């Protein structure tokens, strides 16, 4: 009986063979290739230079700037997302309600166009300064600064922070919140002791979904940084499209990949450990 069941199980797992082939062909082999490029020079000889090129002045500066942007973006998104989710909850905007819809809908407008719209809003004689002028406030020179890039990435990735936190918080049984209040917890304490800790899995997904793309994006910095401010994504892109140095480009990509995977592994690990990761 059990042997027969085992056979059935094994037979069913063969259904995954096309996918297994796909993984080999289009996930593993490309990774091997990029490592090969990263570890060889133009002539095909082994070298560490491409990986180490991250430490060159220009590269390390771009790399560090990317980390700053990504960390700043992640933190700002968290700070904006929690009040947003709590406010939505307060207003009784349920999971299936209009709320999700309102947050997802903007993603259906091409994102490059949306970033271009921000360029128009933030430019020196753009809409923001026009409105500020009407209010009698001085123009702000935000265009082509790191602040403009920050606005762009926060705008772009905020929904990816709101959604998982929203889902986690909507999953919390209302009775738990009532129980906490019953035991004497006021609004903020309920958040600190019950809602926040139980939303941590969602928060961690949000961090993964915001940190990685905001660190590696090159379109936002291209448009809102005015071409002068380079993220590591811009550097890599130019190695392929302008410099045609695929080996250095691959070296930087591999470095970036390893950095991202390690930092996200850390986050995901925290996530699976669940309870212990709660700091408060």
């Amino acid at each position: 009986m059990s042997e027969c069941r085992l056979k059935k199980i094994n037979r069913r797992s063969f259904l995954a063979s096309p996918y297994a082939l796909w993984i080999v062909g289009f996930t593993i082999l490309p990774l091997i290739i990029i490592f090969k490029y990263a570890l060889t020079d133009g002539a095909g000889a082994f070298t560490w230079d491409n990986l180490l090129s991250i430490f060159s002045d220009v590269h390390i500066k771009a790399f560090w700037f990317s980390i700053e942007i990504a960390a700043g973006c992640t933190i700002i998104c968290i700070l904006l997302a929690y009040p947003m989710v709590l406010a939505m909850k307060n207003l009784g905007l349920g999971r299936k309600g209009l709320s999700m819809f309102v947050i997802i809908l903007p993603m259906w407008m091409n994102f490059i166009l949306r970033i271009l719209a921000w360029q128009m809003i933030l430019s020196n004689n753009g809409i923001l300064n026009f409105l500020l002028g009407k209010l009698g406030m001085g123009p702000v020179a935000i265009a082509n600064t790191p602040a403009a890039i920050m606005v762009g990435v926060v705008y772009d990735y905020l929904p990816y922070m709101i959604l998982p936190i929203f889902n986690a918080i909507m999953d919390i049984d209302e009775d738990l919140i009532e129980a906490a209040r019953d035991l004497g917890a006021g609004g903020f304490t309920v958040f600190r002791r019950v809602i926040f800790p139980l939303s941590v899995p969602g928060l961690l997904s949000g961090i993964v979904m915001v940190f990685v793309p905001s660190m590696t994006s090159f379109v936002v910095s291209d448009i809102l940084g005015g071409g002068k401010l380079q993220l590591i994504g811009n550097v890599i892109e130019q190695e392929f499209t302008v410099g045609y140095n695929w080996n250095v480009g691959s070296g930087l990509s591999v470095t970036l990949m390893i950095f991202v995977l390690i930092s996200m592994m850390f986050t995901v690990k925290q996530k699976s450990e669940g309870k212990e990761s709660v700091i408060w």
Partner: protein
Amino acid sequence: MSDVILQLDSISKKFDGKDILKDFNLELHRNEFVTLLGPSGCGKSTTLRIIGGFVKPDSGRVLFDGTDITNLPPEKRNVNTVFQKYSLFPHMTVAENIAFGLKLKKKSSKYIADKIDYALKLVNMEGYGGRNPESLSGGQQQRVAIARAIVNEPEILLLDEPLGALDLKLRHDMQRELIKIKKEVGITFLYVTHDQEEALMMSDRILVMNKGIIQQEGSSKSIYDEPQNAFVADFIGESNIIDGIMVKDLLVKIQGVDIPCVDTGFGTNTPVDVVIRPEDLEVVSKEEGFLKGTVTSVIFKGAYYEIKVLSDGYEWMIQSVNPAPVGEVVGLTVLPDNIQIMHKPASDDEEVVRDE
């Protein structure tokens, strides 16, 4: 200090335009065990949630110790709730759950540790402090929920069908234990159930509710013996309640016969009320039974036979899948577990016993 701790003063509440509570009045006395009993949807939980502060009445007042607390948020009320679904915090250990309210009150850690120990002992859960709530059985989780509420020393404990999710055997155990806990902590319990047996067995006073209105209020015995209207009669009427004497722990005398039971702590030779469900009684030959009586009627009810047996002036009601011959003398047995003992209502006879 008046004896009335809480008063609901003509409370009305509508949901979606429907009257849920209408001009509802209720008084709770100190150290009283009051049960709200009624069918599903009659407004029991709503009443509790108004007292807890989770629902605001449309009109009427909630008075706590004479003070109007109608607009006080739940966290400021000296009332705690035990929820039907336990509602333990899944990200905290049992001990952390119990400490939740005390930490908010900024008690010393020594005090908190002592309280946790005391509460765990009270609910028979010593040594479980470090466990995760999710690793506990339903009954254990509910004990923790009770402990978590009680350590805050509320003046009233609200219990909304706390045993509703447990199986029958566990329910019986927990019922006994709740009574024990109630005696130990000496606070007012307001208990909600739609199980009449449970209400009859545990309460000092029962309020039978239907459609947001109190149908009848009184001791278990008065409700059972003298239902004031058809609804109450119909809702309550399905059990055998008979006078008995608790000879000693684990032994009760009914109709002059000593019968083993599982209850303890009633003292010796204490008059009690005994409750036995019709389906828990079994018709056997007259030699085998604890009690003997004559079958007076047998009615087929579809899924079972309703058999009436007259014994020593009391008509027992039995539900059985097998019929019995009318007119014949038969025996009746019952498993110790299925005998429920309850205190006589806090009335004259209890005083008499104490005076002796």
